[in-house]
């Protein structure tokens, strides 16, 4: 195992955190949460937030901490 770099994908805003839901990778980018297809890194959806930070998957939904408004969002 060498940890080879396979790709780097631009998001235009500095992302904080990432999580995997079994198919897609979710990325918090401050004003949005972006959903990327894990196979090729393409953005398939984005969801507006105020300042998304951490996130976690519960087996069915993605939960995102929106730190500037003291909320948890369930997607």
């Amino acid at each position, binding site marked *: 195992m060498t*940890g080879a770099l396979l790709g780097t994908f*631009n998001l235009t805003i500095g992302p904080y955190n990432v999580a995997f839901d079994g198919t897609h990778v979710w990325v918090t980018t401050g004003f949005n949460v972006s959903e990327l297809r894990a196979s090729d890194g393409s953005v398939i959806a984005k969801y507006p937030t105020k300042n998304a930070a951490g996130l976690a998957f519960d087996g069915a*939904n993605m939960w995102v901490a929106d730190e500037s408004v*003291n909320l*948890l969002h369930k997607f």
Partner: protein
Amino acid sequence: MQRLFRADPRGNTNMKNRIGTGVSLCVLVTSLATLFPSHAQRVVNQPTRVNAGNGAPPLSNPLDVALLKWYKANLTTTVKVGNQPYGVCFDGENIWAVNYADFPGTVTKVRANDATVLGTFTVGHQPQGIAFDGANIWVANEFDNTVSELKASDGSTLGTFTVPSPWSVAFDGANIWVGSNIANATVTKLRARDGKNLGAFPTGGIGAVLGVAFDGENIWATNYTGAGNGTVSKLRAKDGSVVGVYTVGPNPWGIAFDGAYMWVANYGGASVSKVQVSDGSVAGYFQPHNWTV
């Protein structure tokens, strides 16, 4: 055997009698129904909402179900938590979120299936990362230089363990790995069953370790600080030895494993990096794309 109807030479007298009797019965039943309405008829004639009889709000008329109209719903659920939530984890049933700006810091436990807030529990100051070990919740309290262990079932504190400027947390099946927000890129290994410090291990990189993840065999740590592109480090979980240090984008922050690759959020580069972990083979290299996010 006695017959109910006498036989008619023309063969149709009994039939006429039967029809006449049936018509008479129908008229009688209809008349009685008018005089004594059934339960369903009474419900239909009442207002659409009836008193529940126990002080609760009026009940909906169950017969209205056929009149329901369906609309597109906003499926996003929003839950109010503490001040400035940051790290989030799942314990198999509940979502836990740290509230960084509560004073002292807290964590909020939310039932995942209906978003009910089950409790808020005090931890140390400025909590950041959070992880679940199968039974308990571990929280990195950056300001206090401690890590809190809470029982997931009731939120009670089981222990508090010293770690320098802890930020990120991950579980490897037996141990808790904590990345520190200090200049010399270090991860600390705590034994999950008792919190014993099993050692602090340099990642081989530079800067704060703002993200840690486990790939089933190794711990991966992001090394945030550094000029130009940042790095991620791969450490053998069993002994903390560095397997490799790999270049990603600028200022790598969070990291997650998808079963085959590590995904790294490059805060300073507006990008995510996809790093293979299985055998180190290079499957491809992707130039940055200008996604509109």
